[in-house]
């Protein structure tokens, strides 16, 4: 049986940082399993930048201001001890990335360049043109090659095996051989990314962002914290939902309705386009609902105008944005405004992390970092530039936490693992032999449709209950889902089938959390409860899955310095 000291699940920014810090000193046997080759991970899609109060561009900036902005951006749902820990140490993590060879854009003094970003009181977003995540992902992969980190590529997590509240190990499929393996390990870092694909076609996410690690932990008894908070990025391309970086607004782009009006003056008179993402997304959707957008129904949009920046600035700072707009929308942003509409971008909620210094969870031995989990530093709304920062920062600390756990813990119970492995082998066999049933792609599309229309940017009890019923119906249909590939080796249809099961569970948790949060806060905006309600809901939601029963409870928010106040921009 495979046995390691630490297994990291996921090879994006968080996973590779965790692997690097857990394997430092070379005294532990560390492996990374990833369903894709590491440099395919979704960290690479992050465009605009990574926040740290370096004070390179504005020497009045401070880690304190970064702390305050993040708390305000979170609509006061972030845990302030965690945010302060994060913002105070971020500048040193940027220095570390520089030392790892990340090619950051530079200022005239040779220091790392910084740009303004939504919701930030100072220009503190470090960047590499508009491909920041890509260069960080590659630099981390290079460091992993240098340090001989072991990768099990194209391995897919099926279960985290837990008994009596303790980690026993993992079960995973080697996709290429089709073999299902029990893996003994003393500790685990889950770093499997977000799950925006529950909105299937209206998301900026890669097609494989299905929350496999989050779902496995949820199934094993770890609650999901604040799953109802889903960020919609204001500037997805109208046709495909592909992301155009926040750097577009950061560099000075205008948002314009069909009357040619910069409508943000109605919603954020001071910050205008540089308001935070939740606010700008709602503003765009309001314009569309009130008939000031272009097009109709699912194809409605507003325009983002970047022409006034001029060719030189666009080519220097936003070259990838220009390519994306040309390739996927047929528009040259130097010459024309580009059609955009909000697109599901990020999950603030996820695996309940209980200790922000070690990223541990309620299950001894399981740690988590990045979008799959909620520490929480993003609360009800994440600021642009804080996610790549989150993955590298908490990836590092989760790796250190898992290292300490591994030194303290023993390998798990092999028998328990064998039982779980046999269960999955049977399931694989059943799906391979199944000759007919309900198309899994059809279930997937209906899930996305109900989520977009009923648990999207604007929410009501009535709509969400409709979605909840639909999801329950789809969960029933899933039992008869047909994948259509009898092969043993490289059976991606089976993987897609398991991914769909994961998305159904997570979508149900999101909807449950959203129905019960009877207020509007951050990205969670309810037409039937338009105001924030601190008296009842300045609390984290925790959604549990006990067998087929989903239930929720609440947990206090940690407030150290900043008392809730009205959030104005």
């Amino acid at each position, binding site marked *: 049986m495979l046995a390691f000291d630490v297994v990291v699940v996921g090879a994006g920014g968080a996973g590779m940082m965790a692997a690097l810090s857990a394997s430092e000193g070379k005294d532990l046997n560390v492996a990374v399993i990833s369903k*894709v*080759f590491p*440099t*395919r*991970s*979704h960290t*690479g*899609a992050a465009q605009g930048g990574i926040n740290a109060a370096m004070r390179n561009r504005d020497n009045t900036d401070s880690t304190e201001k970064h702390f305050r902005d993040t708390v305000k951006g979170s609509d006061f749902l972030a845990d302030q001890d965690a945010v302060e820990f994060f913002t105070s140490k971020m500048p*040193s993590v*940027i*220095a*570390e990335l*520089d*030392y*790892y*060879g990340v*090619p*950051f854009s*530079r200022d*005239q*003094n*040779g*220091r*790392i360049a910084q740009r303004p970003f939504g919701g930030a009181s100072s220009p503190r977003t470090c960047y*590499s*043109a508009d*491909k920041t995540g*890509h*260069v960080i992902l*590659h*630099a981390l992969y*290079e*460091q992993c*090659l*240098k340090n001989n980190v072991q*990768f099990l*590529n194209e391995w897919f997590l099926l279960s985290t095996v837990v008994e009596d509240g303790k980690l026993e190990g993992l079960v995973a499929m080697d996709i*290429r051989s089709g073999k299902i393996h029990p893996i003994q390990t003393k500790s685990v870092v889950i770093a499997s990314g977000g799950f925006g694909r529950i909105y299937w076609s209206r998301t900026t996410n*890669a*097609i*494989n962002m299905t929350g496999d690690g989050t779902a496995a932990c949820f199934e094993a008894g770890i609650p999901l914290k604040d799953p109802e908070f889903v960020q919609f990025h204001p500037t997805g391309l109208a046709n*495909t939902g*592909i*992301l155009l970086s926040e750097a577009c607004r950061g560099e000075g782009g205008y948002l314009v309705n069909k009357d040619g009006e910069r409508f943000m003056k109605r919603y954020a008179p001071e910050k205008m386009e540089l308001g935070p993402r939740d606010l700008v997304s709602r503003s765009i959707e309001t314009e569309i609902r009130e008939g000031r957008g272009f097009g109709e129904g699912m194809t409605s949009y507003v325009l983002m105008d970047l022409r006034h920046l001029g060719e030189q600035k666009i080519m220097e700072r936003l070259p*990838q944005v220009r*390519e*994306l707009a040309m*390739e*996927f929308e*047929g528009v040259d942003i130097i010459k024309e405004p580009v059609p955009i509409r909000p697109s599901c971008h990020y999950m603030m909620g996820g695996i309940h992390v209980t200790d922000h210094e070690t990223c541990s969870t309620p299950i001894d031995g399981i740690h988590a970092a990045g979008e799959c989990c909620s520490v929480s530093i993003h609360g009800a709304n994440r600021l642009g530039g804080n996610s790549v920062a989150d993955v590298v920062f908490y990836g590092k600390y989760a790796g250190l936490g898992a290292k300490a756990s591994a030194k303290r813990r023993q390998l798990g119970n092999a028998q328990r693992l064998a039982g779980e492995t046999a269960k999955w082998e049977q399931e694989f066999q059943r799906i391979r032999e199944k000759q007919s049933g309900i198309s899994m*792609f059809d279930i997937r599309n209906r899930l996305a449709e109900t989520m977009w229309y009923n648990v999207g940017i604007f929410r009501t009890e009535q709509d969400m209950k409709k979605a909840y019923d639909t999801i329950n119906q789809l969960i029933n249909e899933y039992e008869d889902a047909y*994948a*259509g*590939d*009898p*092969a043993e*080796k*490289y059976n*991606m*249809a089976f993987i897609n089938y398991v991914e769909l099961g994961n998305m159904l569970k997570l979508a149900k948790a999101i909807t449950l959390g959203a129905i019960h949060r009877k207020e509007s806060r951050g990205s969670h905006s309810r037409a039937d409860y338009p105001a924030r309600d601190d008296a009842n809901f300045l609390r984290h939601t925790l959604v549990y899955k006990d067998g087929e029963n989903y239930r929720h409870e609440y947990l206090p928010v940690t407030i150290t310095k900043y008392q809730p106040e009205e959030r104005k921009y």
Partner: protein
Amino acid sequence: MEKISCKIKRFNGSEAWYQEYEVPYEKGKTILWLLTTIREEQDPTLNFTSACRHAICGSCAVRINGNAFLACNTPLDEVIETFDTMTLTFEPLQNFEVVKDLVIVWEPKMEKMKKVKPWLEPTANGSKETGFLQTEEEFHQIAAPTDCILCGVCASECNQLTVNQDGYLEPFILNRAYRFAVDSRDGSPEEHLRPVLENELWKCLHCMQCVSKCPKSIPLTDEIAYLRSETMKMGEMNNQGAKHAYAFHDDVKKKGRLNETMLPIKTDGLVHTAMTKVPFALRMIKKGKINPFHFPKEVEGIAGVRALYEYAKEVKD
């Protein structure tokens, strides 16, 4: 309604075959749309890899009608127009091991890439605690090469690699070596350059396939030229490639044209040429391809040629 006929090379681990699919044509779609439509509507057993669907993750490169493309950002209409056909043949990238259908394996390439130490060897001017200073100009030198998304298109199309998998390095590996050799924060450029030279750097055929098909327009051939000249600066002159380059350089400077009889002697030395090239040379003489008694004279306008050399030197300095 117009249809696109797709012939896709399938592979199940032991057997390979071509399978045909027909998809109703739609305007304004991508190659990835075409593959996804086949998989979701006709055949869920078809495997290919894709993830970000906007040309940053590098997963989805395939060959269509004998040429490599990134599927997600390649417009279907452009491919139809380029090949002037509605019949498209899909195959996995060349020069990679295939695991299934259009899915290839990357790990052996990464093992090979380790030869050039594809990581920063930091100078003493920076530290893990403070990072580095780097000028905007120095950043610009590494901006283009760090666009590489490891999609494998260049390696698939490289004609040298196709005949010399063990000896030659993939263009994306050469790019990685270049990227660190020119990084002002890297203190050991030779550590990246020497393995490149030792892996037949001079064998690049200048066919330009890599640079013309790179979806990120990375100037790979300029980088190869730079790597060669840097290895010469390191004193690595005593090799076929450098001697061949100097033979060209010196002949043209002296006479304004090549002395083809002397070229192999200058490149390989008299003994080696005599031992290996004599029968070949005799055949060429017999066919009237070369005249061993012809010693080229200076061309008309040799002064202009020499002025060009001077100018090039000035520009370089």
